[in-house]
């Protein structure tokens, strides 16, 4: 029983510690992007493209998706057409953060469970 609790506590601690660099790695890869549809209509009105949705912090690793310019808010313009043609559904940083925070909650819960287990075992073993 004690060994099982040690394994759980160790895994929980590793998960908790590892979650920080994992999140940081995704955050460093992400950029504020605005997906746009390029077409001659938008060009006629002086736009690089028609915005699709609002600017989002996304992880798009294919450099060909970027149009090389930014919108007024400083978001990198990304070709919606390129994403569709290549079947790219970009990962959002907020999704990564949501998943990581849930993993952290689970890690904390597992750590507390292990500590509670140790405390109960020690209490039983007292003369």
């Amino acid at each position: 029983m004690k060994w099982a609790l040690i394994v759980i506590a160790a895994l929980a601690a590793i998960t908790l510690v590892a979650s920080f660099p994992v999140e940081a790695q995704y955050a460093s890869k992400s950029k504020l992007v605005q997906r746009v549809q390029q077409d001659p209509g938008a060009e006629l009105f002086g736009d690089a493209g028609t915005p699709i949705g609002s600017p989002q912090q996304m992880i798009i690793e294919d450099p060909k998706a970027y149009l090389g310019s930014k919108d007024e808010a400083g978001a990198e313009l990304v070709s919606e057409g390129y994403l569709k043609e290549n079947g790219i559904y970009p990962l959002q940083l907020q999704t990564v953060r949501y998943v990581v925070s849930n993993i952290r909650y689970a890690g904390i819960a597992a750590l507390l469970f292990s500590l509670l287990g140790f405390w109960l075992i020690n209490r039983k073993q007292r003369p």
Partner: protein
Amino acid sequence: MNKKLFVGFGLTALVGMAHAQMMTFTVVGDRLQYRNVATVESNTEFETFTGRSSAVSGTLKFDPTKKTGSGKIMIDMKSIDTGIPSRNDHMNGEMWLNTTKYPTATFETTSVKFVKGEDYRATGKFTMRGVTKTMTVPVKVRYRAASEAVTKAGFAGNVVQIIAKFDIKLSDFGVKIPAVAEGKVSNNVSLNVSAYATTK
């Protein structure tokens, strides 16, 4: 002399009236329809997803000189694509947009007020999922008279681009977000429409 002046003023007024006429525009379809973009965006802690359609139709009246107009815009709700086929199926379902029973969302203006530059405030009736609400939304109206550049861009005649963005609550339109989707779909969603309409 006075008679000549009077005739001169009369001609100027006539020319002005000719320029100030209300024009009727039809939202582009067929080969140009892809240029229209209607999006619905849901933002939750988990993700922001955007459903998108090009199936926008309707007619507009616009006077670029008097800066006034009116219009009715329709969006084919069934054609909204979220990027995930199973999510599209859910969204079309009875619990969500129920597109079989309510295939279109419509905005019909009752009054349009010029704000500045290309900015207007349109008040009108927005109907979605069989529920009609009166709303006032900011609209950008951009006009280009028929020219070589307009033709080069693939349009015929005069062209306007209308850009509107407004927020709605799904619950106001009879959508009850099921417990399983809470946290993944927001009750507050943003609707954006960018559509081109021409006089020919």
